[in-house]
């Protein structure tokens, strides 16, 4: 009897129902990606243009005008030192976004390299690297960052270092997993048998596939970094005052939450919007780079 399967083509399984044509859509037709990019670009623009847009100096105190409600002069009112909340919000974006975006670089690079080494070479290298990863995983992110920032002393560079020490492990885990899968693919086996040396196989054949996973993850990692920075700011361990920063703004505002509640709400909303934009980009990238993973 001739056997062939037609039914499977028509089974609307989520995976197969996604026609190939959709995979080839150009990036600008990916709604999540575009929406995310628009949101993030607006936030970045606001941060970059803060000196132009901000109506007041964000750290200039004016105790005569402290704790005012929204008005024509101060759209979002003033804080307890009479500083303009809107200006602080705009300048805060500069700090939080800059650190968030920059802090992701070192862990991305270090984690990707270590993960690729562990996954590609395996053996004792893998065992050692993964045990170190396990150790770092045992510490909750916030605990380790808080402890490290304490140990390293206040300031921006401590934050970078603390984040780097903590968040490389996620990249390492992701990349290692991807590399192990990729290594078993036929084309990589063929490249190895064909006499390409390890660096070339890693760089040319495994790299592009694996990197896309790391990049997608980096989007949520930036969100996480911003979370860390504002949390440190809230706890009073982050950027030193009087520099405007969203987390410390929320902490300052909590005192007056019964009356001037928007002062605590608005900086948080700014974080949420930024996070939403980055998450949308991450979703869009997942769609674009590896549609078969999408569920």
């Amino acid at each position, binding site marked *: 009897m001739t056997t062939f399967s037609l039914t499977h083509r028509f089974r609307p399984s989520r995976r197969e129902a996604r026609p190939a044509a959709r995979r080839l859509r150009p990036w600008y037709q990916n709604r999540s990606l575009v929406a995310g990019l628009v949101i993030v670009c607006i936030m970045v623009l606001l941060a970059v243009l803060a000196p132009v847009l901000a109506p007041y100096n964000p750290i200039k105190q004016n105790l005569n005008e402290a704790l005012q409600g929204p008005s024509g002069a101060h759209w979002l009112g003033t804080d307890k030192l009479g500083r303009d909340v809107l200006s602080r919000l705009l300048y805060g974006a500069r700090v939080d976004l800059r650190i968030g975006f920059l802090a992701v670089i070192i862990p991305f690079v270090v984690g990707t390299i270590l993960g690729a080494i562990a996954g590609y070479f395996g053996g004792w290298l893998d065992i050692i690297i993964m045990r170190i990863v396990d150790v770092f995983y045992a510490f*909750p992110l916030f605990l380790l960052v808080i402890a490290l920032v304490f140990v390293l002393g206040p300031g921006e560079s401590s934050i970078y270092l603390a984040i780097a020490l903590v968040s490389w492990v996620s990249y390492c885990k992701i990349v290692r997993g991807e590399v192990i899968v990729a290594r078993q693919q036929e084309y990589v086996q063929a490249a190895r048998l064909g006499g390409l040396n390890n660096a070339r196989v890693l760089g040319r054949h495994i790299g592009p596939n694996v990197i896309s996973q790391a990049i997608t993850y980096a989007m949520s990692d930036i969100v996480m970094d911003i979370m860390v920075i504002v*949390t440190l700011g*809230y706890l009073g361990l982050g950027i030193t005052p009087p520099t405007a920063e969203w987390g410390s703004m929320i902490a300052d505002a909590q005192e007056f939450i019964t009356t001037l509640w928007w002062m605590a709400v608005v*900086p948080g909303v700014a*974080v949420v919007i*930024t996070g*939403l934009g980055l998450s*949308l980009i991450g979703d869009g990238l997942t769609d674009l780079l590896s549609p078969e993973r999408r569920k």
Partner: protein
Amino acid sequence: MLSRLKFVPMRLLQAVPVAFGVTLVVFFMVHLIPGNPAESILGAQATPAKVAALTDQMGLNQPVVQQYWHFLSNLAHGNLGESYTYQVPVLTLVWQRAPVTLLLVAYSVVLMLIISIPLSMLAASRPGHVRDHAVRVIPLVGLGMPQFWVGVMLLLVFAVGTGWFPVGGYGDTMMDHLWYLFLPALTLAISISPVIIRSLRASMLNVLESDYVATARSKGAGGRSLFAGHVLRNAIIPAVSIVGVNLGYLVGGTLVIEKVFAIPGLGSMLIESIFARDFPSVQAVALFVAVFVVLVGVLTDVVYTLLDPRVDLTQRMNA
């Protein structure tokens, strides 16, 4: 059933190297301090005599390996040093504070399940429907919300605004505790639920497409009986490991949330100790929390094994 838990001692044994690494990290925290740790720990009150005394007390003038050995042997005797602030063994402090934090963690896990399961069922039962899309938006927004800010918002609405819940504190009786910890636990549950909802929704969709759900339907199961009898348990299995991984995040969150709601747990202890430059206390909290997370990992495996009869970790370990 119990014979399938034979892997637990072995699994605990495997956790030993990790725990060992944890002690290394906690120990070396001191040595990351730029300059003379003793000097920077003492901060403003540093006089040469005090610095010398502390250096001696911390054994900082001994070789590092010897210091670490000293640290480990003290640890083995349950001695993590004395709190600079309270002049009592830090472990005593940790044991006082830990129950508060553990209760908060457990409370949040319960609330998380109460939030995540119905929402993911709602989404998975009609994929592509409006309510599915609505639920799928939750992670996008939820993952971008700083935990402490969620806490402040809940405080604003349900404590300050409506007065339904206390603004902070812990209370005296167990009922009090549950009452006082409701908003903090809810905060943590909200912040972790997006991840859980996402994974539960995906695994529920998988299960709903499975042959055995078709079998269950052919037996006349549907609606609630189908979800309760067949879908939920199978869908929760993959989510268990996600919960396990995220418990670390949850515990980290507790530390911060305790500050928002003024709860006398390990988190407040950590922050207080940091501002007091009370180094042994910071180390003790870090060590305790890390060991707790490692044990949660073991617990995750146990739950996993109990939920899924196919899993036999005993065999996998021996292999």
